């Protein structure tokens, strides 16, 4: 064993000190690294409700060509006038909305009387919705009200938009629901 005189004396002093309880506490201690020190920050809007809080998505890497930037952390945007950095528990959990293995990735249907959700294709889902819209409108359509006035309304349906829908999408959605005679409608157009 190659042990210099200096190292031997050092080891002896330290060992002896520990044995005797002559421990001097350390001047410094380690801690966890700031995990977002060099992540890429991207501004976005929380998709959960119509309040539309600003969020910052932290993604891996610095946007270099060879990096796939998956989301590693989400925080409120302190510069956003709505929430000024704060978020509710749902907003705090957006990372899971993006990366959780249990999230929805395909349309699903729960047929009448069934207790399970089945995955269906987008084509089947849209065809099914169109069928139901037509049937419901035919069944529920009200041409005139009790006073005999023409109303052409369809009280059997409602239309609810999502808070992340764009203006253009909301325009189309509004047009379509008016054409169906839907009076119960909300685009959540607050973004």
């Amino acid at each position: 064993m190659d042990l210099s005189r200096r190292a031997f004396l050092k080891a002896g002093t330290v060992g002896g000190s520990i044995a005797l309880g002559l421990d001097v506490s350390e001047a410094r201690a380690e801690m966890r690294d700031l995990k977002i020190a060099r992540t890429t920050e991207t501004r976005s809007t929380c998709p959960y409700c119509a309040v539309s809080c600003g969020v910052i998505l932290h993604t891996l890497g610095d946007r270099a060509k060879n990096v796939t930037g998956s989301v590693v952390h989400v925080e409120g945007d302190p510069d956003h006038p709505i929430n000024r950095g704060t978020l509710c528990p749902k907003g705090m959990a957006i990372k899971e909305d993006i990366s959780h293995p249990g999230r929805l990735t395909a349309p699903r249907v729960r047929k009448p009387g069934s207790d399970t959700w089945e995955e269906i294709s987008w084509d089947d889902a849209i065809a099914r919705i169109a069928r139901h819209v037509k049937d419901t409108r035919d069944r529920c359509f009200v041409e005139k009200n009790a006073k005999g006035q023409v109303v052409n309304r369809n009280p059997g349906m409602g239309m609810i938009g999502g808070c992340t829908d764009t203006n253009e999408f909301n325009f189309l959605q509004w047009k379509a629901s008016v054409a169906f005679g839907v009076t119960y409608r909300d685009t959540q157009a607050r973004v």
Partner: protein
Amino acid sequence: MAVNELEVRRSSASVLGFLGGARKLPTVSKYIDTSTCIGCKACEIACQEWNDLPEVATVQAGSYQTLPDLHAGYWNLIRFNEMEHGDTLVWLMRKDQCMHCEDPGCLEACPAPGAIVQYANGIVDVNPDKCIGCAYCASGCPFNVPKFAEKTGKMQKCTLCVDRSRVGLEPACVKSCPTGCLHFGTKDDMLSLAKGRVAQLKATGFAQAAVYDPPGVGGTAVVTVLAHGDHPEWYGLPKDPQVPLGVKLWKGFLRPLGFLAVLGAVVGAFGHHLYHGNKGHVDPGPRDPDETGTAA
């Protein structure tokens, strides 16, 4: 190793002082206004998310509270307390986490050198490299905060996001709070904020409103405003928290005494050697020829 560290104000299980103290940093502090907490639990999720803690199975015990108690993987818990006050029911929510005491009972009780440290900015933290998982800190804590993690065999608790505060960021829980009942700043600033809020509460019918900053543990780096300040126990807080007497006796008296005893034994032995010198060779004298076995 020397990349990511912070100067230490105090460290567990040290007898002869410490090497820190070269720099003076203001104590960072968390302000909690229990009267404006709505129990949304954003802080709980922010804590889990920032610290990358695994999901802990929730327990339904008849209230909105996520878990009955803090957990090694759940460092931040809103406690929902229902109390009868006069002829009304009061619903009190309090954010429970490490209080980061000025004189931490956990640090006092810890027998592993350097396993619990108080950084220069007042944050009390467990160093998992040095922690031996004996759970003595749990017995020393008047707020019952440190929890044993089965998976790692170490104690875990809130770090006041020391990784964030070290670079000048607020803790994750404080940042998330939508009602603004949480604030972050220096202890002095948080105390003056709390005093202002108490005056406001007193003027609006809460005559007993008070700041909870218990002197028994030297004050805490978590400044709590209680609308019913005369009943901290309603919020699940001890009325006058103290470091347990056993811990004080052991660390303040028995341990130094033991240290002195060991030192005394060594010095005594050496003194004895100096005074009496080596044990000399004692001449047993000539042997009795009868016992030599040579005579037949």
